[in-house]
């Protein structure tokens, strides 16, 4: 049982949590909902001893935590999977899983039979397995998420907290994780999770707590809620989450991006496709199907082994570095905002200005005031909160960081926009806003290539959907809801649903 009583927290003058009380019982899956910046992550970090509250009490099974340190929380049986990945990239899966664990007193975890056995047991129990000797940095973002879950489970927690655990998983892995949570909960673990997927919350959770602006809005059984009632509580008004009808590009719209037989290692195997002006092309597939790698090849973030790209009617080129693509009008919003997207220690204004074409040369003046003025416009359009251009990006909530990332690239005025998981971790309202931004960009003539693990998002936005499997294009369909089954079948291949890759 996890109890949080009257938790208060402020960062400087900004009140983040204002007397929040929450009770999560064993045998019950407890979901926490709220807009971006509502204070959800801060709340669960306090429960796990990662952040010290200004006031309030945290108790596990009735015993208050001795101190607000990760160690005290861990000793009390609380484990957390944080929103941002925290594995050590250069070390192996095993070393990461046993980081700070006492299983091996001296010597290498890698060589400990006991550690390996324990790891195998946990993998077996939870239905996810990872190669113990793989280097964490080489794993896909989904596998790194699974790694974090394994790292918690190895300690057999009494309270397991997961902050947006499914945001970087594909539908199949997300489903397996939900099954796992149910099993843990039935076995008596207290499970608390944060999610922006309302259907997931309604399906999985027994109890749901809604926060808004750091205050508790409601806490009650999930049966009493509907998607609409939850949205109303989260944003304080009703909101349509339906996709607007698509504007089709004119039939004679010219091709703005043409990829020809792109190869990259074993991840991308001879992919060709084209995007027309004003068209949104969706890339469907499982995580690890090579969609992100393909996109990285297009902009030159990775150098393809073979193949050419034609940007905006230019000559076919072999992409070498992102600079060339950007100046030709091809930009990519990367999937990993923390590693690849943002300079976390700098301000919103500076991040927004980062990728603007370097027209005035290196010595061009970039006065902070002018950057901030330029940023205000985007802050308003993308509804970035807090609405301060000088705010340090690393201190924004996850969803707001995502909005900064997207705005940064839209601010360059691209001709072709590649977006890789653009709504990862954003709340319902912001998600609708981002969808609107993408649809608008397309309507104004930008060619959009959309990678998403959410089939709904692809079906709702894309005019055409290209399906990837194991680095190859296996199917191409119209973006119609009726194509759902066909896309799934193509993505999973002949082996059918449930098979792991």
């Amino acid at each position: 049982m996890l109890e949080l009583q009257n938790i208060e927290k402020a960062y400087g003058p900004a009140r983040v949590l204002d007397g929040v009380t929450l009770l999560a019982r064993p045998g019950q899956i407890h979901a926490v909902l709220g807009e971006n910046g509502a204070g959800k992550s801060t709340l669960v970090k306090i429960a796990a001893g990662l952040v010290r509250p200004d006031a309030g009490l945290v108790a596990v099974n009735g015993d208050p935590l001795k101190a607000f340190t990760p160690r005290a929380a861990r000793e009390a049986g609380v484990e957390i999977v944080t929103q941002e990945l925290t594995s050590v990239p250069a070390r192996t899966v095993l070393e990461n899983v046993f980081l700070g664990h006492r299983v091996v007193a001296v010597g290498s975890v890698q060589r400990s039979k006991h550690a390996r056995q324990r790891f195998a047991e946990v993998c077996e129990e939870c239905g996810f397995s990872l190669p113990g000797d793989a280097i964490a940095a080489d794993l896909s973002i989904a596998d790194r998420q699974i790694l974090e879950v394994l790292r918690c489970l190895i300690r057999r927690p009494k309270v397991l907290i997961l902050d947006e655990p499914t945001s970087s998983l594909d539908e199949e892995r997300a489903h397996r994780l939900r099954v796992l949570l149910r099993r843990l909960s039935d076995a008596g673990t207290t499970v608390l999770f944060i999610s922006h997927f309302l259907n997931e919350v309604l399906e999985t959770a027994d109890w749901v707590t809604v926060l808004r602006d750091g205050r508790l809005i409601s806490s009650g059984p999930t049966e009493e809620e509907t998607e609409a009632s939850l949205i109303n509580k989260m944003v304080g008004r009703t909101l349509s989450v339906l996709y607007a009808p698509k504007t089709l590009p004119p039939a004679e719209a010219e091709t703005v991006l043409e990829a020809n037989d792109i190869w990259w290692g074993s991840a991308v195997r001879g992919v060709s496709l084209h995007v027309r002006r004003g068209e949104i092309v969706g890339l469907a597939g499982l995580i690890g199907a090579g969609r992100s790698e393909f996109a990285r090849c297009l902009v030159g973030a990775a150098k393809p082994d073979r193949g050419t790209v034609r940007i905006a009617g230019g000559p076919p080129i072999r992409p070498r570095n992102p600079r060339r693509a950007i100046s030709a009008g091809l930009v990519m919003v990367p999937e990993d905002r923390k590693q690849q997207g943002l300079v976390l220690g700098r301000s919103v204004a500076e991040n927004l200005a980062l990728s603007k074409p370097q027209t005035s040369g290196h010595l061009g003046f970039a006065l902070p005031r002018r950057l901030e003025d330029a940023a205000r416009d985007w802050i308003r359009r993308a509804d970035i909160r807090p609405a301060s251009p000088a705010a340090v990006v690393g201190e924004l909530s996850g969803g707001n960081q995502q909005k900064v990332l997207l705005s940064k690239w839209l601010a360059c005025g691209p001709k072709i926009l590649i977006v890789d998981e653009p709504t990862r971790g954003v709340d319902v309202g912001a998600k609708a806003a981002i969808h609107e931004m993408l649809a608008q960009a397309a309507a104004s003539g930008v060619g959009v290539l959309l990678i998403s693990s959410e089939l709904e998002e692809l079906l709702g936005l894309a005019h055409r959907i290209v399906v990837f499997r194991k680095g190859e294009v296996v199917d191409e369909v119209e973006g119609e809801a009726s194509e759902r089954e066909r896309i799934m079948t193509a993505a999973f291949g002949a082996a059918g649903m449930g098979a792991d890759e």
Partner: protein
Amino acid sequence: MSDVTAPEQPQEVTPTRGPRIRATRDLGIVVFLVGIFAALAIAAPSFRTSGNLSNIVNQMSMQGIAACGATLTIVSGGFDLSQGSVYAFCAILSVMLVHTFGVLGAFVIAVLAGLGLGAINGAIIALGRVNSFIATLATSYVFLGFATVITQGNVATTSNQNFMVMNNTYGLTVASWVFIAIAVLLGILLAYTRFGRGLYAIGGNPEAARLSGINISFYRIAVFSISGACAGAAGIIAASQAGSADSSIGSTLALLAIASSVVGGVSILGGQGAVWRAVVGALILELINNGFVLLNLNPVYEDVVFGLLVLLAVGMDQLLRRRRT
């Protein structure tokens, strides 16, 4: 529980948050500087004389110039440990060339040599993908070797009177003015230009910077060239003040420059800092030095005090930064 339009509220208060926090962050080290200044002014009457104050600026000009260059490298996520060797090399070069090329010619060639050595560092780091700490540690030996070779292990001297530009102009020495000019120039470069923004981005997150279309190799080479040129300029000043130079003169410079930046509050992790911080840091270190002389303290303890004050300054800065979280 029932306020319906709540999301609008916090936006009204927050816009001033960033700048205000920045102001308190800045304060720490400046308060420390003013503290030392006041303490010395009270304890040693001779401290306040204009002669002593201008002497302080003159004394610190060499490490100050080096520290300004070091700040740019540190902000961009690197270290330049070869500054001391470049300093010695350029000092020797200027002394040796003054016969043939005259004072101005010797100075220009020596600064260009510093720039060139820095560019070599930058090229090794950017194109060879070598960690800057290791690369400049290695080149610091190589460059020092060059310096020893051209003097054949001797002290290079000159009797050219014009070479010793010690004369005061508007109350400060030429060296001091050069230092001030470089500090202002690099300060503007880092804080107000696109180039400067790029350095912060590279230091903060190199991968994000690369994907944003920033030419990282160019920036690395440029920043190490600037660092080398700064070390060269500092070396020339040292040579001109002494009228001689040998290969041992720069042995402490690189670490002193890094220490100045760090004391001033430049983050060694990269991505944070400013040139004025390096100036404040260098000034604090110089004041400690000056205090020992004026107060007739036993110089044996100077290094200990020096180290402790560095810790104190950094600790105080950390404390002020942490308080807001």
